[in-house]
C-alpha cells in the first residue's frame, strides 16, 4: 500500500421522506458542503469525486455523474460513479479510499445519495412490472429461515427495532423518530412481510452522505482529529444457485475475515468498539452479528437480547439509529461507514460511544450477495 488514508471530513443531510427544499444536486451539495466544512476545505481543494447511488431508475436520471458534475465542482476534474446495489454506499467509499491509498489522488470527496421522493422506488425495483415483491418481500423468507434455524424468540426482532429507534432520537440527522417506542408498539404494528412488521422495517428516505478522504499528510494537517482507514474489503457472490445460503452468506464471512485480518483484529467481539451495520429489517442485526463473526452461529440474537448491542453495551451496534431509522438507499451504506468514522473521531454527539477507538462500517446489497466493509481507528495503521 503506497499511502495511508485519513477521513478528515464527514457530512450528511437531514434525512427525510421528502426533501422538497433541495434539488437532486442540492441534496448532494448539502452533504458535500458539510464534509468540506468539517475538513476546512473548499470544493476547489478536491482532486477527484466518487459518487455512488442505487439504480438510476429510482430518480429517473441516467448516469447522474454527468448532470451532477457541475454542482460538485467537477469541471476539469475526474468523477466516477459506483453502483453495487445496496452495498453501493460502502463500496463507493472504498473506491474513494483506494484512490488515496494507491497514491493517485491526495484529496477525494465521496458522496452517496438517494432522492427517493423524486421517483418511485417500488416501481423502480419491479422494473415497472406488476407484482414486484419489493425488498421486504424478497428478504422475508431469509429472516424466517434464520428464526427457525436459531430458535430466536420473536421479541428479539422487536428489541432491535426499539434500540435503533431510541438511538435515532439521539441523532439529529435521523429520518424516522418514534419517541414513544416500546416493544408492544413494535409488536402491534402491522405485519407487512411476515415475519417483518412495519416498525421493524426501514423507511424510504431522501438523503446523502459525504466524506473527504486524504493522504497521510492531509490527515496530519486536518483541523479536526481524523479517522484512519485500517482495512477495506468487498465481496460478491452469485445471487442464486443450489445450496446457496442467504442467511449466513459466505461472501459476508469472507469480507469480514479479510477486513479484520488487514486491521489486525483477531477477536472481533473484543477488539471492535463500535459497529455500524446495514440492518434494513430488524432481524438482520443478529444475522449479521453471526455472519461477520461477532457471535457464533445461532448466537447473534443472544447479544441483542442481553443488551450487548445497545449504546453502553459491550458491542454497540447502529448507535446512529441505522438503516431502520434512515434509508436513503444509495447513501445507507456510506452512512454506516461515516458513522463508524464519526465514532472513532469522537464526533458522534449524543450517540457517541465513550472511548470508541476501533469502528466497523458494513453494507450489503443485492440478494444478500454484495458486501463492503471497512475498519477505522483513531490512530494511524
Amino acid at each position, binding site marked *: 500500500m503506497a499511502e495511508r488514508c485519513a477521513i478528515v471530513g464527514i457530512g450528511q443531510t437531514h434525512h427525510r421522506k421528502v426533501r*422538497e427544499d433541495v434539488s437532486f444536486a442540492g441534496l448532494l451539495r448539502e452533504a458535500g458542503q458539510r464534509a468540506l466544512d468539517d475538513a476546512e476545505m473548499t470544493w476547489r481543494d478536491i482532486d477527484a469525486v466518487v459518487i455512488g447511488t442505487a439504480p438510476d431508475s429510482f430518480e*429517473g436520471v441516467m448516469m447522474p455523474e454527468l448532470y451532477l458534475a457541475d454542482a460538485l465542482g467537477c469541471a476539469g476534474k475526474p468523477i466516477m460513479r459506483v453502483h453495487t446495489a445496496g452495498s453501493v454506499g460502502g463500496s463507493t467509499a472504498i473506491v474513494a479510499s483506494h484512490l488515496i491509498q494507491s497514491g493517485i489522488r491526495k484529496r477525494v470527496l465521496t458522496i452517496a445519495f438517494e432522492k427517493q421522493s423524486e421517483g*418511485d422506488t*417500488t*416501481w423502480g425495483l*419491479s422494473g*415497472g*412490472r*406488476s*407484482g*414486484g*415483491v*419489493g425488498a421486504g*418481500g*424478497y428478504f*422475508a*423468507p*431469509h429472516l*424466517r*429461515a434464520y428464526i427457525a434455524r436459531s430458535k430466536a424468540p420473536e421479541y428479539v426482532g422487536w428489541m432491535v427495532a426499539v434500540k435503533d429507534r431510541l438511538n435515532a432520537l439521539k441523532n439529529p440527522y435521523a429520518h424516522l423518530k418514534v419517541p414513544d417506542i416500546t416493544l408492544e408498539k413494535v409488536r402491534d404494528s402491522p405485519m*407487512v*412481510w*411476515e415475519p417483518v412488521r412495519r416498525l421493524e422495517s426501514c423507511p424510504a428516505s431522501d438523503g446523502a452522505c459525504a466524506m473527504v478522504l486524504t493522504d497521510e499528510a492531509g490527515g496530519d494537517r486536518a483541523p479536526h482529529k481524523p479517522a484512519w482507514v485500517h482495512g477495506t474489503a468487498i465481496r460478491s457472490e*452469485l*445471487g*442464486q*444457485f*443450489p*445450496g*446457496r*445460503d*442467504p*442467511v449466513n452468506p459466505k461472501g459476508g464471512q469472507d469480507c469480514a475475515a479479510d477486513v479484520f485480518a488487514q486491521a489486525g483484529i483477531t477477536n472481533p467481539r473484543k477488539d471492535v468498539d463500535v459497529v455500524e451495520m446495514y440492518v434494513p429489517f430488524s432481524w438482520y442485526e443478529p444475522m449479521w452479528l453471526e455472519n461477520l463473526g461477532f457471535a457464533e452461529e445461532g448466537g447473534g440474537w443472544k447479544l441483542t437480547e442481553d443488551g450487548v448491542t445497545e449504546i453502553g453495551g459491550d458491542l454497540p451496534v447502529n448507535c446512529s439509529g441505522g438503516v431502520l431509522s434512515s434509508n436513503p438507499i444509495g447513501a445507507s451504506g456510506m452512512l454506516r461507514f461515516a458513522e463508524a468514522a464519526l465514532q472513532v473521531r469522537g464526533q458522534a454527539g449524543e450517540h457517541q460511544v465513550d472511548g470508541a477507538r476501533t469502528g466497523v462500517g458494513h453494507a450489503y446489497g443485492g*440478494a444478500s450477495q454484495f458486501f463492503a466493509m471497512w475498519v477505522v481507528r483513531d490512530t494511524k495503521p
Partner: protein
Amino acid sequence: MTDTDPQVADDGPVRFMPQLISLDYTVRTNPVAAAFGEALADGRITGHRCPSCSLVFVPPKGFCPICTIETTSADEVVIEDRGMVTAWTVLTPIQYHGQQERKDYALASILLVGADGTVGQQRLIDIPLDEIRPGLMVEAVWAAPEDRVADDRGYGLGTAIDGWKATGEPDAPASEYEGHTL
C-alpha cells in the same frame, strides 16, 4: 412521450411537478428461454444439467454460473411438475404505477423433483396463507394450452402455469428443503 401535469395548489407554492416518462423497450426472448417456453407450452418443464458439476438449473440459463461453461439443448433434462415449498412470503401489494395486485397473496420458492435449484416467486393456489409451510408438497396447475406464454425474459415459468396447489402428500422432511432458502 412527456406528460407534464403541474399541480398548482390553490393555497401554496408548487411543490412537485410530476413528469411521467415513458420509454419503450423491445424485449427479446433469448434462444435458451425460447426453447424452455416452447416446452412449457407443450406441458413440460425443462432444465439444463451442467456437464461439469451435474447441477440441474431450472429454468435453464444456457450456462452454468458456477463452472462458467456454456450449456446447450444437449444438456436438457425434463423436470417433474411437482415439488416442495422451501420458502415463501406473503405480500401486501404496494400500489405503484402499473401494479395490478390488490389483495394479500403468497409467493413461494419451489424445489421441483429432478431440479437442484428452486424456481422462485411462484403463486400458491387454494392454500390458506396460514397453512403455508416449508416441505409442503405442491403440483402445477397448468394454464389452458392457448394461454401459455413463456416469460419474455426467460425467468420463472411465465404464464404456462397458473400456480401450485397442494398434492395432499405428507410434507417433505426438513433435510430436503434446508439449504434451499432461495
